[in-house]
């Protein structure tokens, strides 16, 4: 418990250094563009791939498991949409991104720490936390809604693909289910959740990477710790947000 408090205190101190006015705005904006590309654009492929397959599997599972003459068949599309919009595209996708993006950030910063690149920045008079971490947090938080939208679209498209090529459910019934009792509020809710999770992933990974002491072994350890911590925090925050917003 005491150790957790110490870590939280250090995290708050690091964030207070991170959220400072950038020394050069031009450099800051260039860094954001780089980070959006590295953390966000480079994740589009995996988001599309996973979403499409999971969407297809959800459609098949729902269809096979709720088969009953009392339940209308469009429920398959309806449930696929609800699962994808409310949980999969935000929470589960962010858990996956915690692995990809979180480990990327932690290992990059950790390597910079052990090779004295962060010390070099400090010696030059650069606020290293602000220069290195802020663009990552801002870039990822800004881009994650795009990833969520991609995930939603391709998740539902995966289900549609299954309905098209199999006789589990007809495409028109699936499509009717997707549109049935739809509330746009769910998209906003999902995007907001993902943005909070993106902040957790990028800031926690930055904390673990930035504070690496030692060598290559510790960089790997920091990377693992960042993924585990981000995942636990995402799941806990998910429960809290669901209680508050739904």
């Amino acid at each position: 418990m005491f150790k957790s408090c110490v870590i939280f205190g250090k995290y708050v101190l690091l964030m207070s250094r991170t959220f400072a006015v950038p020394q050069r705005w031009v450099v800051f904006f260039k860094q954001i563009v780089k980070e959006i590309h590295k953390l966000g654009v480079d994740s589009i492929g995996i988001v599309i791939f996973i979403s499409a397959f999971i969407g297809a599997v959800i459609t098949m599972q729902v269809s096979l498991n709720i088969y009953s003459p009392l339940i209308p068949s469009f429920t398959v599309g309806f449930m696929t949409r609800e699962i994808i919009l409310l949980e999969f595209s935000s929470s589960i996708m962010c858990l996956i991104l915690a692995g990809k993006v979180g480990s990327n950030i932690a290992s990059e910063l950790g390597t910079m720490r052990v090779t004295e690149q962060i010390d070099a920045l400090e010696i030059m008079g650069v606020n290293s936390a602000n220069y290195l971490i802020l663009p990552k947090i801002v870039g990822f938080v800004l881009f994650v809604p795009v990833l969520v939208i991609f995930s939603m679209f391709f998740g539902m498209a995966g289900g549609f693909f299954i309905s098209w090529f199999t006789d589990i459910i007809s495409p028109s019934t699936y499509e009717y289910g997707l549109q049935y009792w739809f509330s746009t509020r769910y998209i906003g809710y999902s995007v907001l959740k993902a943005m909070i999770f993106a902040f957790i992933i990028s800031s926690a990974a930055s904390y673990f990477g930035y504070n690496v002491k030692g060598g290559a072994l510790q960089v790997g350890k920091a990377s693992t710790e960042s993924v585990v911590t981000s995942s636990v925090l995402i799941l806990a925050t998910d429960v809290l947000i669901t209680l508050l917003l739904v």
Partner: protein
Amino acid sequence: MIEAKHIIKSFEDKQVIKDVSATFDKGKTNLVIGRSGSGKTVFMKILIGLLSPGSGEVLYDRRNLPAMKKPELNALRQEMGMLFQGSALFDSMTVMENVMFPLTMFSYDNRQQQEKRAIFCLERVQMRDAADLYPGEISGGMMKRTAIARAIALNPKYLFCDEPNSGLDPKTSLLIDDLIHDITLECNMTTVINTHDMNSVMNIGDKIIFLNEGKKEWEGTKDEIMTSENKTLNDFLFASDLFRKAREGGNQ
């Protein structure tokens, strides 16, 4: 000029720097020598403000670094250049971008003037042809030269080098030593070098400070070091047969 006065530093219960005072003169290459674990790196980190001393003062032309507030410290740091043991070049940037970095962050010159300065620095260390390469594509010696170019980009008053010759062959080590010495004279900088390379000591040591187990054991010039009667210094210095024979040859 940099003055360190009565520096003490402890980690938990262990005192690693024990009341060290030293003066580093302007326009000279000041060497801090000592065995591995003697406290050289900790002492240098205190000098540049990466570690705060337990007690004592570090005066940069009478400005006390440990007592400085953040803006004052940042301003002072722009007067410093640092060459790290592992060069500490930014992996994601080319050689040119590495040298441009301090200029982009702190210089108010326009882009063309910044590029002109960066090219001048690269030419000074004979790295102009490698400007578009990444650190992963160049040799250790080239990395050191690039790091020197980056360190002098803002025309610093103070240059710090932590083990500049580590991992280099003797010939490249001499080149790096000469480069640091020449740049110190050209720019009239206060240069502090941490080393345990005896070739560097004899080649460029205008002023030498010997640390042993966190204490300043000896201070003098490269001419005085060969005739010193300090036993601990002599044990360190003449551990190499080459230097012992050189000394014996000199005495005969």
